[in-house]
């Protein structure tokens, strides 16, 4: 399989995960947000699928750009600009490299520039940050993703809509962290990191 095909396979598996877990993501979001993270992401990944099914991608840059723009224009809310910025940053970085750890680090930069969240604020960054660290060390395993996801449970939200709950946000997994965990589990499964 060529590099582009692996990444396409990743996005396609991520799409399936989101569609399968739409109701679960809505449920997590109902606890600390407004209950539509699954519906919004579902709309986004379906738009991504429609877009990339039509394309013939030789360059990662074109692939990531199409994914990012589809997410930005379909998801809405905060997740649209955040996931969209991640892929648009990855598109820019892919002009220089095809190393997954560097690409995803660029994705994380895109998210933090747009959302201005630091680790520990109970957001998707709390999964992205440790995952990118492990990726750079070359040690990313499913257990790292699970651990990062689980860590959001005991955090108090200080960014996004969940922040209005204050202490009441403690005890719930962050929905954006959960969708990000699907993103990285499928990254492992799709073999993007395999040589």
């Amino acid at each position, binding site marked *: 399989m060529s590099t582009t095909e692996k990444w396409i396979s990743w996005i396609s598996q991520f799409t399936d995960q989101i569609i399968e877990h739409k109701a679960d993501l809505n449920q997590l979001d*109902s606890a600390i947000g*407004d*209950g539509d993270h699954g519906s919004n992401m579902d709309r986004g990944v379906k738009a991504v699928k429609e877009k990339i099914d039509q394309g013939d991608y030789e360059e990662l840059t074109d692939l990531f750009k199409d994914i990012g723009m589809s997410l930005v224009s379909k998801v809405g809310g905060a997740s649209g*600009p955040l996931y969209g910025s991640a892929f648009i940053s990855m598109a820019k970085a892919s002009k220089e490299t095809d190393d997954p750890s560097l690409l995803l680090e660029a994705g994380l930069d895109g998210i933090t520039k747009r959302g201005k969240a630091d680790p520990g604020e109970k957001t998707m960054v709390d999964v992205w940050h440790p995952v990118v660290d492990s990726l750079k060390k070359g040690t990313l395993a499913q257990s790292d993703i699970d651990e990062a996801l689980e860590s959001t449970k005991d955090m108090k939200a200080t960014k996004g809509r969940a922040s*209005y709950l204050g202490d009441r946000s403690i005890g719930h997994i962050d929905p954006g962290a959960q969708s990000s965990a699907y993103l990285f589990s499928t990254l492992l499964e799709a073999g993007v990191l395999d040589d």
Partner: protein
Amino acid sequence: MKKIINQPDHVVDEMLDGLAFAYDSIVKRIPDTTVIARHLKADKRVGLVSGGGSGHEPSHAGFVGKGMLSAAVAGQVFTSPTPDQILEGIKAADEGQGVFLIVKNYTGDVMNFDMAKELAELEDIDVDFIVVDDDIAVEDSTFTAGRRGVAGTVFMHKILGAAADSGATLEEIKALSERVNANVYSIGLALSPATNPEVGKPGFELDGDEIEFGIGIHGEPGYSRETLKPSKELAQEFVSKLKKEIDWNPEDRFALLVNGMGATPLMEQFVFTNDLKALLEGEEQLNLAFKKVGDYMTAIDMAGLSLTLLKIEEDSWIDYLNYPVDVIGW
């Protein structure tokens, strides 16, 4: 869920078509977008664009027309519109004098409008914006996304709309918006939650006799849950919260907005307004120079209401509030 809808994910699209059909003398839907724009164009005024998630009707499309907004951009229910749609709204509003965006302080709205601003600037349209944050229920704004933008946004639409129609420049509108935002305060309560049609069940739960003070317009939590009390006591709670925040003096001038959340009848809104009269004009001796009661910034079918007070710092604000408009919802 019991709602007069077809497919839940078609609600926004069908609502916009219905609205544009019913009020075709005032507005039109820009084809293949979620933008509602006024017909009036090319009178060389600054364009005003607002928008946000759907479910707040008549906000925001209900305020599009002569003397108020140039265009409104609708997102999915309770979800910010996307940058490409906001850009279409900006283009529809542009009369060559720049476009001003009115954004409510929610994380998603701020990010999407900001991205749209960047896109518009690439097309050589001058864009500036205000992020309205009038909800005083959020006390600890350092540890949250900050105070939310709620019903006070409607006063912002009205005042800036009149200023733009009177020929104010983009810079003047930006400065005016900052002064208005610094003087507008809101607080709400809910008796029962809203059901987002795409989710299918209520966004939170309240016991039969329980109410929530400080609720947000998507059902974000407030500052306390208590047993339902008579209207007078609810009004007292709002007034004491606002008084602590505003630190007013007798004879100070205010504009008042009592806003229904969607499922609270006008009957109850007027009862509540009558209690506010006794407290604000009677006990506090405030000068209520402008008053509005009704559904302006709703939360689908949430039962409850909010109170907005705008401290009048300039005489022109009263003129702007009384300025004649041709819109659906004012």
